């Protein structure tokens, strides 16, 4: 039996169509990452599945049970850790867990034992008797996750479990998540980070504007957008045109000091070395040079030729402003496949790729500036 079956689910809030006919299946024991930018509809979908929000149309079933008609039965087999910690601020960590345990209909003693176990496991034992109000963001999130686990759920929803967390808390959450999965819990996890989905999920579903626009493994998605790049920031923008001529397959970015070089499978060190050697040879100094993984922005630009719905930068790459990218030449794609293949001197030099409508992923780097500016900059420098 499928753990989750969603078919043609729609949900509208006034003018906003938060879910525009979503189809999704999650098998029992599977870990699915729902990847999408702010406002894509992730939380709305999770809330529908967790019986918190009735869909306007379509059907959602959890272990074969309808989330509307059999809501109470569904609630017995799910756990939910939402984007905002749903714990009681005035109660201590221990009191919170005991209360939720009792409301899960454990006996008082069992709820107490379970609370102690979870406090230990989530590294909250020291803070167990302090009000949750005094907890840090990471502690609160851990308490929230623990609250979902008083009775081991067959299916756990994690809505952006690590957004805004420090690395230690993030690792703790990832670790517990993996343990749960090893124990057979089915997991539907939402995230804005490809990295996170890739780390935890068997399969990733990309959601945008309330619609699933792609599904596959992390590798599938990364392949689709061309894998890693060497990202170079020069000390002096005046050097860029020379650098673009000298470095094979270099592509300019909107920041006049930056350009990037796509990396084919297993050639990261080679390309890194070539770039460094070449720049050193022609006497150009860099401010920064490194390997960069594809970001969510890249995935989106590649998949939709459009910016993320919310326009908000998801991972510190700077806001890929929607307006700057919609002009896009469709799916782009050119940059990834053509340039990685043509590892050599091939035609894909900087000005070229800019002229024929810069690869859409460039706009991901645009930091909000319009494509037009990009071209202008390029010409000015060239």
């Amino acid at each position: 039996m499928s753990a989750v079956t969603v078919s043609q689910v729609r949900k509208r809030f006034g003018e906003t169509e938060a879910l525009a006919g979503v189809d999704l299946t999650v098998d029992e024991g599977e870990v699915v990452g729902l990847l999408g930018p702010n406002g894509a509809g992730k939380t709305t979908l999770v809330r529908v599945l967790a019986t918190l929000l009735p869909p306007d149309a379509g059907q959602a079933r959890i272990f074969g049970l309808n989330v509307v008609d059999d809501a109470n039965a569904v609630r017995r087999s799910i756990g939910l850790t939402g984007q905002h910690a749903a714990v009681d601020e005035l109660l201590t960590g221990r009191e919170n867990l005991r209360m939720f345990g009792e409301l899960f209909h454990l006996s008082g003693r069992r709820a107490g034992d379970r609370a102690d176990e979870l406090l230990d496991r989530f590294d909250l034992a020291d803070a167990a008797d302090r009000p949750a109000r005094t907890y840090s963001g990471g502690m609160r999130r851990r308490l929230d996750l623990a609250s979902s686990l008083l009775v081991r759920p067959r299916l756990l929803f994690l809505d952006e479990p690590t957004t805004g967390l420090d690395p230690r808390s993030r690792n703790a959450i990832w670790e517990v998540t993996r343990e749960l999965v090893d124990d057979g819990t089915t997991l539907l996890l939402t995230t804005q980070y490809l990295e996170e989905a890739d780390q935890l999920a068997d399969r990733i579903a990309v959601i945008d504007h309330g619609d699933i626009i792609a599904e596959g493994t992390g590798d599938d998605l990364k392949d689709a957008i061309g894998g890693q790049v060497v990202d170079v920031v020069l000390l002096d923008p005046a050097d860029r045109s020379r650098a673009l001529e000298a470095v094979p397959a270099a592509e300019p970015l909107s920041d006049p000091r930056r350009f990037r070089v796509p990396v084919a499978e297993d050639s990261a060190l080679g390309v890194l070395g070539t770039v460094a050697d070449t720049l050193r040879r022609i006497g150009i100094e860099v401010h920064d040079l490194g390997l960069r993984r594809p970001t969510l922005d890249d995935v989106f630009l590649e998949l939709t030729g459009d910016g993320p719905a919310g326009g908000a930068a998801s991972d510190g790459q700077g806001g890929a402003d929607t307006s700057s990218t919609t002009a896009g030449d469709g799916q782009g794609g050119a940059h990834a496949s053509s340039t990685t293949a043509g590892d050599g001197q091939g035609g894909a030099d900087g000005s070229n790729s800019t002229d024929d409508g810069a690869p859409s992923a460039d706009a991901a780097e645009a930091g909000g500036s319009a494509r037009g500016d990009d071209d202008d900059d390029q010409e000015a420098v060239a």
Partner: protein
Amino acid sequence: MTTSTTSEPGAAGRPRADTAAVPAPTHLGGRIYWQGRDTWTVTKRNLRHFVRQPRLLVFSTIQPMMFVVLFSFVFGGIAQVALPEGVTYIDFLLPGLFVHSAAFRSTQTAVGLAEDLERGVVDRFRSLPMSRAAVLSGRTLADLVRSLAVVGLMIGVGYALGFRFTEGLLAAVGAVLVVSLFSFMMSWLFCTLALWVPGAEAAQTAGFVFIFPLVFGSSIFVPIETMPDWLALFAANSPLTHAADAARALSIGGEALRPVLLSVAWSVGVLAVIIPLAVRRYRRIV
């Protein structure tokens, strides 16, 4: 556009999650039991909230005691002339103030519920297989417990100022029960209000708008015979007057049966209408 799904689901080879969830109660007895236990769990939570919010603690303990002192001294002199022979103002006032404090405390019920609805914790309550109505019944029950404690404190202060129950222990207990029932009814009333008026501030404002005229247009502070005719007519039919008169008669003597019956009838009648209404509304909006 959709890229193809090439991954294989990780289901194979993994053990099924062992879920220890208690099965759903199928018969009525089981449902009532869990309804009661969930209510008690939420009640404990709300009582903890109560003692951990200094603002609330002051509002609902110090303030009623202060009112006992202030009203009895400030109005004692002028009110005395309107009172029957041998009745002191503190005797007259204290049973009325039970009702007064219950009425004002109920605005806190509305605020508390409105705050809960804005808090994330309600989301968790909703995703648990608990009784939904327990959020309401747990709140009103906690308020009832609090109400008893406050009445106890007020009696203590009243005794220090010369108040005495004159009708025996049973009648005194009866007075507290009538007031508690009234208080419980007001809690539910204001829960209901909070479910229709969005936001804690609004709930509080709406509460005061109702409460002020009701409290002063009643026999809580002065005998209604002293009021202008139109106001006396309003006050004579107010449930607050019935509650105050009942508590007063059971405390210090006077005709008790009629106000007690009226007060209990009001409370039970309102509860019978409003509890199903509130529960239905809660299920719908949350």
